[in-house]
């Protein structure tokens, strides 16, 4: 393993903790280093206890970490809550409040606020902190200067000067602090991207030619919309705040019917309100993509926290039954690809696609090699050459071998496009006839055979191992890292990670999982993936490692639990 450290910066909301994180992450990115950063915040706008954990390495990171090499405690709470997470040889930087009882070999008191005030304003104390940290990590002041310039240029000379001064005084102090590691900030050629899941989802939608984002604000989903709206000037996009989630999904369905790809983003409570509209999309066979950004519930639960607890709800949501796609990407880059796949397959099969994300994936940022491609996902399945329908009648719900019928947009030719959420004939007229009903149910389900073939089976590290850490979605990185660490410790672990969730080919899945000792790892209390596996294959799991406190699953947590299970 390479050079790899973790820094936690904590303080009150509104202090600008995130800005420090952004500066660090940019400095590292410019130098070709890899980061993995996580934000932890309360459901409030100012005050309280927020923190940002940034892990930095010169190699690709798959997961976050909680073994702190540097703890930056802007407030007392941060110190108290996190001092026990300090790694051996780790150091603590405390805001100097006059009280020096915490002073020790590993703890430096730094007057962040005083230095900022000296530079011209308390508001820049986060810049002081950034300066201290970058100096410790081995960056040059030039690196910091460039970043501050870029960040504060637009805000006017005064603010820029203030921040440069604050950064400098922080940097100077940082230089005096002993730390056991440093990075090479001189490298620069690289082709990495740093992205949050939120940004990746927005980009994935754009790359799929999604043009309409009707939404109703809900944490943590709103982040995707904020990211998309940054492109609203340059792209043919309409980002429309709906009056509620019911309106959002129905507006998406309406736009898609009229030929514009649409996506809505929400979280559990909003997804509840969308379930009826999901069924409409299914019945009318109108493509639509929904991101359900999970957070802990039930009900309002923990609004700004993370969970992986909507798996079975998402698969079974809405009355009666219909084919749908469900994806659960494990990283920002996976998200980009999953969203593209969601659009592509939703359009190809005329069924709804749901992408399961969560607060952890949405808000955490990481460096990944850049291979964000524009593929054929944006290519349309809408019939554009509709000349044949001048002679033969156009049947929106024509029975076909694949179950997929010719989709045209309304008013695009000399024929009528008739869609409905009632049971209907091939023409799209409502019908209560039992034979027609059977035919239509069967038509819709014919797609499933083909849909299954589009889905990736879960990935494995290796097929022979004494047990398999089995998970899905956002905990992918932590599972992989935990697994690799365990193997380094001589423990014969492998992983099984699901990213394409539904529909899966039960027979193929059974083949993969058969005779394997499964240890399910997921962010909920009832082991939903375990239930789903048993439902599909009859195969039972051996153990489960669950977490439902609203915080991400860190590799350390998995390792600890595995060791417990193994009786270590």
């Amino acid at each position, binding site marked *: 393993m390479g050079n790899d450290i973790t820094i936690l910066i904590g303080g009150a909301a509104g202090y600008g903790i995130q800005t420090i994180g952004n500066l660090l992450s940019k400095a590292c990115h410019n130098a070709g280093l890899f980061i993995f950063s996580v934000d932890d915040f309360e459901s409030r706008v100012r005050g309280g206890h927020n923190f940002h954990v940034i892990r930095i390495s010169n190699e690709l990171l798959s997961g976050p970490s909680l073994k702190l090499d540097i703890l930056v405690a802007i407030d007392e709470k941060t110190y108290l809550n996190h001092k026990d997470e300090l790694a051996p040889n780790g150091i603590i930087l405390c805001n100097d409040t006059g009280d020096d009882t915490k002073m020790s070999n590993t703890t430096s008191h730094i007057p962040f606020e005083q230095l900022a005030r000296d530079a011209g304003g308390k508001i820049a104390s986060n810049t002081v902190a950034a300066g201290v940290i970058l100096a410790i990590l081995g960056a040059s002041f030039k690196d910091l200067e460039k970043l501050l310039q870029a960040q504060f240029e637009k805000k006017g000379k005064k603010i820029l000067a203030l921040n440069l001064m604050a950064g400098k005084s922080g940097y100077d102090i940082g230089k005096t602090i002993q730390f056991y590691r440093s990075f090479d900030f001189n490298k620069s050629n690289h082709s990495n*991207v740093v*992205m949050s899941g939120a*940004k*990746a989802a927005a*980009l994935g939608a*754009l*790359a799929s*030619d999604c*043009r*309409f984002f*009707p939404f109703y604000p809900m944490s943590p989903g709103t982040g995707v919309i904020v990211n998309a709206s940054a*492109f*609203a000037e*340059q*792209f*043919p*996009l*309409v980002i*429309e705040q*709906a*009056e*509620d989630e*019911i*309106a959002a999904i*129905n*507006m*998406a*369905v*309406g*736009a*898609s*019917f*009229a*030929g*514009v790809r*649409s996506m809505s983003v929400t979280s559990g409570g909003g997804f509840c309100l969308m379930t*009826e*509209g999901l069924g*409409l999309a299914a019945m*009318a066979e109108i493509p639509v993509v929904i991101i359900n950004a999970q957070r802990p519930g039930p009900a309002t639960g923990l609004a700004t926290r993370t969970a992986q607890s909507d798996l079975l709800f998402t698969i079974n949501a809405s009355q009666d039954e219909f084919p749908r796609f469900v994806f659960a990407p494990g990283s920002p880059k996976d998200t980009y690809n999953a969203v593209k796949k969601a659009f592509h397959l939703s359009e190809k099969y005329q069924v709804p696609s749901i992408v399961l994300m969560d607060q952890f994936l949405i808000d955490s940022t990481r460096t990944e090699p*850049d291979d*964000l491609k*524009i593929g054929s996902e*944006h290519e349309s399945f809408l019939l554009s050459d509709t000349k044949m329908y001048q002679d033969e009648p156009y049947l929106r719900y024509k029975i076909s071998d694949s179950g997929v019928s010719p989709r045209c*947009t*309304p*008013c695009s*030719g*000399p*024929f*009528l*496009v*008739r*869609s*409905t*959420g*009632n049971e209907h004939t091939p023409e*799209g*007229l*409502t019908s209560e006839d039992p034979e027609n009903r059977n035919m239509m149910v069967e038509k819709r389900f014919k797609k499933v055979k083909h849909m299954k073939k589009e889905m990736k089976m879960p990935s494995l590290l290796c097929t022979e191992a004494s047990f398999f850490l089995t998970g899905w979605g956002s905990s992918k990185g932590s599972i992989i890292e935990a697994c690799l660490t365990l193997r380094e410790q001589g423990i014969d672990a492998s992983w099984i990670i699901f990213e394409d969730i539904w529909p899966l080919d039960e027979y193929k899945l059974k083949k993969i999982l058969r005779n394997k000792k499964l240890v399910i790892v997921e962010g909920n209390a009832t082991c939903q993936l375990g239930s789903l596996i048993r439902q599909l294959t009859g195969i039972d799991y051996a153990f489960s490692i669950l977490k439902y406190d609203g915080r991400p699953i860190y590799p350390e947590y998995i390792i600890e639990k595995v060791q417990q299970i193994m009786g270590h």
Partner: protein
Amino acid sequence: MTKTKYDIDNENQWCPGCGNFSILKAMKQAFTKLKLDPDNLLIVSGIGQAGKTPNYLACNMLHGLHGRALCLATGAKIANHNLNIVVTTGDGDCYGEGQNHFTAAIRRNIDITLFVFNNQIYGLTKGQASPTSAFGMKTKIQQNGTVSSSFNPLATALVNGAGFIARGFSGNIEKLSSTMVDAMKYKGFSMIDICQPCISFNKLNTYSWYKERVFDLENNGHDNSDYKKALEIVHQNEEKIPTGIIYKKPGIPFHERLPVLRKQPLSSYVFPESELKNILGRA
């Protein structure tokens, strides 16, 4: 009945004698007057008797969920504002389950035309009170009469800035169809609340009940650009039911409020592949 190009070979499921037949006729007349071809017309509807309407017309159709027709229509219009969109919905559909979308559509001034078949009852579900049912009206379920005062849709629309507000009566097809033509010509959100006798369940607001009360605003010299007058009219109580255009003022429709739509319909842009490549490089 004379044949029109909007006729369709599909069994009508309304009760014989229902006021909806006249509204259907008025719609066909209006479309004819507007020279709107079926393949150039999109009717979006909710669930209820009124929601069935596009099933009885040759037109493009999007027949959605109970209460959500305006959302579907808004989405479709944002996607392609060249579409001619009419929404047919009921009083329960639009003012009950879907009320939040009603004011939202007004506030967006989305350029569609809304026909509310207001029979002051839930028809399709067999006669429960609707938001416009008269206070105290008895039904199978409201056995002692409703205990909620009735919703005033036209006043609600007016005070929230709607630019085209009218009332119609299924019993006067000529007048209704000409109001429909005006509504559809209006650039922005237009609505006609249409008095429609439900002969099966509403024994209070019958054809003759309406007939005795409706009068034509135009014949009474109403100036429909006068907001204050309009405000009075929408407050008129049941004893006199004004029909025709109550209020009309020009406004900027939704698709002219957004730069991206001012240029061209959203659906007609080409995929911006190269701009996208630029962005991805910098992600």
